[in-house]
């Protein structure tokens, strides 16, 4: 799903940086109480996390999804489903309400799984590579050291979140606008920061702050694309190299 929304350059790091934390320890005490009740009374059949064992997965149960405030779940707990081997459970109304709160929280957690890794994503999950091999790649075939040095990247692993570091390592986004030189028919050149470029207009701002616009059909445009090397790498980097490189950068605290 998710019909592609426009991909804005540089947005990646912003999105990663501002994502809400993934569903974590429930803030609602009823959910915590309900979880304890559930594990004790229901977990043997439905799994401690309600994703099913001998009994069905309740996180994807149509009955649980259709339930608003326990009106569907409570009768099942109270009366059981004897025909399917589920006995009635002697829980109080308050305990049942807690179990209902826990099940709803589990459904919400499953639905929130499309947020992807958050800021608190454990480094251990990302650290599958070999830092030494990553360092060799950085200083060797990766070509990274052509633009970056260990010194210039010092502290980078402390500066960014775990996933954010991996994202920025691969493609840092458009931190600086490209520098561009426009060669005019009269052999003069204009140099500055690129503001806009399509097949109909090139616009830039020079060092003095002046705006210039040209018809790209009548000039030659040299664009200094500072991220070209990163894009080239995206097309050739293997996942092993990626994770080795990440393991190496993660050492640059």
């Amino acid at each position, binding site marked *: 799903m998710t019909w*592609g*929304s426009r991909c804005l350059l540089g947005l*990646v790091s912003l999105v990663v940086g501002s994502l809400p934390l993934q569903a974590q320890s429930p803030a609602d005490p009823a959910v915590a109480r309900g979880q304890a009740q559930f594990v004790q009374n229901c977990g043997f059949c439905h799994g401690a996390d309600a994703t099913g064992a001998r009994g069905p*997965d309740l996180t994807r149960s149509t009955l649980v999804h259709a339930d608003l405030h326990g009106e569907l779940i409570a009768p099942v707990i109270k009366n059981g489903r004897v025909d399917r081997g589920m006995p009635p459970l002697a829980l109080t109304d308050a305990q049942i309400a807690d179990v209902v709160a826990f099940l709803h929280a589990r459904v919400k957690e499953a639905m929130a*799984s*499309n947020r*992807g890794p958050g800021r608190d*994503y454990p480094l251990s999950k990302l650290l599958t590579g070999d830092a030494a091999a990553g360092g060799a790649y950085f200083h060797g075939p990766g070509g990274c050291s052509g633009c970056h040095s260990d010194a210039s990247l010092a502290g980078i692993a402390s500066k960014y979140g775990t996933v954010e570091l991996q994202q920025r390592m691969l493609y840092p986004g458009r931190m600086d606008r490209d520098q561009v030189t426009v060669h005019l028919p009269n052999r003069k050149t204009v140099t500055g920061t690129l503001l806009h470029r399509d097949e109909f207009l090139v616009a830039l701002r020079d060092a003095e702050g002046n705006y210039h616009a040209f018809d790209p059909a009548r000039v030659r445009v040299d664009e200094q694309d500072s991220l070209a090397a990163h894009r080239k790498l995206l097309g050739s980097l293997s996942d092993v190299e990626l994770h080795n490189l990440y393991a190496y950068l993660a050492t640059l605290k």
Partner: protein
Amino acid sequence: MHAPFAASLSRSLLRRAWVGAAAALFMTGLVAGQGLDPKILLQPATTDWPTYNGDYSGRRFSPLRQINAGDIGDLALAWAFPNVPATIKSTPLVVNGVMYFTVPEHVFAIDARSGTLIWHYHYAAPGDHIGHRGVAMYRNWIYFTTPDAHLICLNANDGSVRWNIELADPKQGYFSTMAPLVVDHGTPHVIVGVSGDVTDIPGYLTSYDPETGKMQWRWYTEPKPGEPGSETWPNADAREHGGGMTWMTGTYDPEAHLLYWGTGNPNPVLAGESRPGDNLYTCSIVALNPETGKLVWAFQPSPHDLHDWDAVETPVLFDAPFHGKPRKLLAQASRNGFFFLLDRLTGEHLVTAPFIDVNWAQGIDAKGRPIPRPDKAPSPQGSLVEPGSDGATNWMSPSFDPQTGLFYVVARRIFSVFYKTNDGKPEGWAGRDRNLWANSTIRALDYQTGKVVWDHEIGQGESTAGIMTTAGGLLFSADLNHNLLALDPRSGKTLWHLNMGNGVDASPMTYELDGRQYYVIGVGGTLYAFTVPEAQAHP
């Protein structure tokens, strides 16, 4: 008003707009009760645009030629309909001089001559508001899907509700954004799909009686136990929660009397350990009998998908030679980056070829399906995949131009890292990918090989502007710098552009009314209609 518009909006056009508005009031009265005879849909559209794709074939090719390669430079604004409360992603219908278009919760009926409002219908609903594709029409009735997965039948004259039924239970996570399809081969059907993959729910396609809203049949993406395809699921739990939404409008071959539909990704979306197997009929193109909903054949562009690559992109139908022999063909440029050509009568696979760079496949199997590379599956540590989940293309319209014999697609290069985040049993998405960088291009493909014939770069980012071709020798689309584009469909060269100051997330359409051809495109929350000056229109 944006400067280029001011230049192109001539006084005479404004004057004509007023005359048109007056005529429209008269015409609207005249039109009431006429509606759309479903038999008209059996022939390719000529002047109207009576279905989501313009006609049943999904080619998005119009035979109109008043706006053409010779006079496109004189194209000028006819009217604009602004202040729509969301980005327009729908394709309008035009029938009997009235245009019907949508955004989530809203239907607008406007005068196709002047852009003046005839009626507006609002249905406030919770649910996903990601976008809306448009309506279907049968006789004097309009069919509209909603964020809470209802199907509403409206009176085309005034937007009053005739009936409102539930397509699916929104509490389970269903919604609907698609434009239904009307098929009448003796018995009328309005065929409607459902959406939603945040929860693990089954996809299906339903046919209703357009008069009463009574269900005629329902085809489930997941086969019943023992049916062919059920063996591609490990157990009932996986199969009954397997996803495969029918997000988009299908196509129809009246001669073969077959309905063609694409299905979406399996669930859980990015984690496959609880659903080993091909997971039929998710990420598939299926041919169904429109009277019964029974499956006739199926082809699966993405077996055991792990990347959200719905195969719901338009299955485009055309008759053309293949290896020298005339064939009834079906082509899809799929979200996974591959172009597929099939025999639409039998489902026989003819061509599989990537239409843009992809790094996830290690070959093509005997059935013509790409074979996924295991190391490109989403992983806890992140897997670098091209394309990302947004896809090498998506819902925006492709086009087939019978004059050039070329298939056109908006193609995106998207690099993305796929993370699988579940610790226990996967539920819902169980992860997500993060885009790194993307750019987009309009591509012409040789349908017999899938090879790229020309390539027109349209900038950095992911284009969601669709394509239409016309007998006027034009290909309409847009770039990512807010320019509307008309290209030469043979070469890809730009013939016309207009910067709108806003991006396009819609597919273009065209119609002819009172001897004038109009080209229509949604830009942000405004619908624009262009035409050529009257001197050219009536030489």
